């Protein structure tokens, strides 16, 4: 989640072995998020992380790290800022792409972004999302909101199998991936993994805790 610590945390995550950093631009009513990310958004907003502050945070982070940065947010922020202006401002501030958690592939198709698909998605919708996605397809591993889980979702395997038949774009799996063991199991199936709530919990303990956590995930992948 964007905040004053983000550049340091991003640098720590990259030192731990992260290939890409997702930066949350907080929204007051995040429907796709469970308690951990919802609370982080509440804290960020209380600290004044409106869109202008988030763009500044993105810019400062891009000056610190060389990996791709991908803001993750909700449609409300783009609606308020202006859809096209928002897209060009994040690009100017160093973003590689964008994720909008409540914008399915058939809404605002002109907005270039990473599309998400879920275990409930039909084959037609997976094909549509893959065709429109920007670089890689985000596979939501489970039917639910974000948040650390005990087990890796069993729905990931059939979702990857369906998506492989429909597209050649890289598939990154996220939602609920919390431990090195989950990471290793998910990476057997997908081309990349996305860790949100668990990384956020580590980041709450500081940059070195985050670096150790990311390094433990990285080690599990090799």
């Amino acid at each position, binding site marked *: 989640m964007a905040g004053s610590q983000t550049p340091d945390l991003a640098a720590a995550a990259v030192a731990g072995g992260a290939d890409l950093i997702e930066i949350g631009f907080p929204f007051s009513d995040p429907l796709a998020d469970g308690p951990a990310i919802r609370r982080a958004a509440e804290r960020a907003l209380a600290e004044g992380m409106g869109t202008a502050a988030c763009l500044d945070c993105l810019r400062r982070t891009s000056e610190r790290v060389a990996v791709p940065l991908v803001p993750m947010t909700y449609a409300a922020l*783009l609606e308020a800022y202006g859809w096209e202006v928002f897209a060009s401002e994040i690009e100017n501030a160093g973003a590689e792409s964008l994720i909008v958690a*409540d914008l*399915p*592939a058939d809404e605002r198709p002109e907005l270039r972004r990473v599309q998400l698909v879920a275990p409930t*998605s039909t084959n037609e*919708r997976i094909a549509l*999302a893959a065709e429109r996605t920007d670089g890689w397809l985000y596979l*939501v591993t489970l039917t639910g909101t974000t948040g650390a889980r005990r087990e890796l979702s069993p729905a990931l395997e059939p979702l990857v199998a369906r998506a492989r038949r429909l597209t050649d774009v890289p598939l990154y799996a996220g939602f609920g991936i919390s431990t090195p063991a989950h990471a290793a199991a998910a990476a057997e199936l997908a081309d990349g993994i996305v860790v949100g709530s668990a990384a956020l919990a580590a980041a709450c303990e500081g940059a070195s805790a985050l670096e150790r956590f990311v390094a433990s995930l990285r080690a599990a992948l090799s």
Partner: protein
Amino acid sequence: MNVGLYGDYGGRYVPETLIPALEELTRGWEAARADAGFLAELDSLLKRYVGRPTPLDEAARFAPAGKRILLKREDLCHTGAHKINNAVGQALLAGRLGKHRVVAETGAGQHGVATATVCARFGLDCVIHMGAEDMRRQRPNVDRMKLLGAEVCPVEFGTKTLKEATSEAIRDWIANVETTYYLIGSCVGPHPYPAIVRELQAVIGHEARAQAFEALGRLPGAVVACVGGGSNAIGLFAGFLEDEGVRLIGVEAEGAASLASGRPAVLHGSRSSVLADADGQILDAHSISAGLDYPGVGPEHAHLRDTGRAEYVTATDEQALAAFRRLAATEGILPALEPAHALARALDLDAETVLVGLSGRGDKDLAEVLAR
């Protein structure tokens, strides 16, 4: 392709996980409304279970001199508010879609009670999300829901009112979408919900138009209803939209005036007029009435405002309380605090005959009113 639009409002701003369920719902609804069997069953339930048609009453002592005020008595529906019209229809739809678990949000508790009621009637599991603050101020309805067999989940974060309850109901639906029907309580949310709720509430307006014609020999000069999410208002307005001589007036709570002081924003799956800041962050609403205490509104109302077909005004907590007391003293009717807002503005409206949607009864509000 953008679906479900009212002008520039509406749409489907939800996580992908829900899209297949929304498409299934759209198909299920289209099939149901074209099915004479479904329509007959709905009609029969509205008669023998809900108690329709509700009367059109005249409030001769409540009305100021020289003015006629007619009341569409939705407070006489089973469970005490218009919410049951929608709940019955959607519960039938849930059955057709093969869902056995129903989830809903509630503010005043009237939609929660209506949902718990139809779930008991049809043997469905029922989970209601309700803000902790609303559980406090609408206590009788919490007890009713529990007695009806519903599980009531308190929402302890954020505003602890209808906005957060709706978010939690949608999150519950996301997590359980394969088994669960989301029975939304107002004409808000992603397409096709605003259209479904409007059509199920339109019975109010269609009855009222015929009854007004019978009572007055002509149509009323103005039709007034309170607007929270906007379902009783859109249902009442639906009967009069084509009658250009009839003014349509929606009354919002002053501290929750999504139409009077909102801006275009995205909340709970659709684009509408919302209380939001310049960054699109949703602002808190404030109203004595839990059912109006919501920063959003149905997309069709935003469109009706922009086209000028309907007007939207506000009433303060004090005006609503005064109208509540006046209706009790002059007509022997305790209105809910929500329609008390509509009653307040009907009094000073510049129209000779005014038809007011009395959307619910006030038993749930006694503690709140007595505390003032």
